[in-house]
């Protein structure tokens, strides 16, 4: 089973995104993941164009910005301590100092904050971009998303959607 290559009928112009974080949310440090779910509420075929109304839901999860100016100090091991010497040997590891690398992203101790935004859209597409208007069931896919931390508690970026035909629908 291979996912079929989706044929894009029309690529919309880019949508600038501007989100204001709700209150009590910390400042954005680095963005871990973005998820976008576009949804078409309804569509209408006019004479020369197709009217599409829907919304897109953007979910952003991010790590809190670090406010500490100094980097973490490397913990020094007392080498003169007899017991630390024993511990080293019990680990079965003999390494130089600084052997402790933080597991994972190093930010694993930090909490992942998740915010969700929803925006409606309402557009018109010229029918000349669509090859079979009769059988056309529009679906939206994401062409490109960029988001980064703006000033203060805000996020800004851009979103590019494109229109595809979904003739077959999976019934659940």
């Amino acid at each position, binding site marked *: 089973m291979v*996912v079929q290559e989706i044929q894009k009928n029309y690529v919309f112009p880019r949508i600038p995104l501007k989100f204001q974080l709700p209150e009590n949310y910390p400042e954005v440090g680095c963005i*871990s*993941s973005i998820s*976008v779910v576009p949804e078409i*509420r309804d569509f209408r075929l006019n004479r020369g164009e197709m009217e599409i109304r829907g919304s897109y839901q953007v979910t952003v999860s991010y790590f809190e910005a670090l406010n500490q100016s100094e980097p973490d100090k490397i913990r020094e091991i007392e080498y003169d301590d007899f017991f630390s*010497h024993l511990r080293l*040997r019990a680990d*079965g590891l003999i390494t130089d100092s600084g052997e402790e690398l933080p597991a*994972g*992203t190093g930010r694993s101790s930090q909490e992942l904050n998740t915010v969700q935004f929803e925006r409606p859209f309402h557009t018109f597409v010229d029918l000349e971009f669509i090859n079979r208007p009769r059988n056309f069931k529009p679906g939206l896919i994401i062409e490109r998303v960029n988001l980064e931390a703006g000033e203060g508690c805000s996020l800004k970026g851009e979103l590019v959607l494109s229109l595809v035909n979904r003739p077959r629908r999976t019934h659940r």
Partner: protein
Amino acid sequence: MEVSQGPDYRYYKANLYPPVQPPGGVLEPFGTVEIEITGPKGRMNCRTHQCLGLFAETHPRIKYQVMLQKEMDGEPVVIGHLSVDRSGCGVLKWDFSTAGSDSGEGIPVTYKLLIAARHDAGLRGKAGGGVLMSGVISLKSAVRDNRVVGFKKEVKVREKGRDIKERNPFFEKVEPFQPPIPNSVWWRIGVLPDSYWQTGFCPRQKSNKAMY
């Protein structure tokens, strides 16, 4: 005219960050992962940035594994290896399915995506491997590998052919340190010669003092 029955298309994008923050520097992503899920099918596109120079000619024998790990139970699964793009980026495409795993609505499944260097057989003795970058992503449903698994042939398992270290009492299995790297087994030698314990002197220590 027509009202859709809820979205069946989802798009996810996660940034991959290096495991250690550079002191005083700004953390910048080393790569991105894009996941598109249409109905039960999904595709993951993994891409590292060009500036890393992972596929430089200086170390052509290193393989870069892409691993997926459920955050709660931490056994990472190797998805595949990065291959070189025309522009020098590491690229991986992976098809998966989410069929039959969409159990509860609204309970996201958090995955951790790791890219680790794995040396080829010739280099394995010198250095192990390390996690280059990792990212966290929470999907709506669990992910299952799509690759077709062939029928299992019945194979005689020879008892004697097992790894010697598994039964040898002189070797003691040691749990791997964090971050866990698959297929790596850490061993330590349990029994040492007497002379090893009696010297109160460790040459690897910083302050070389004899202790009596």
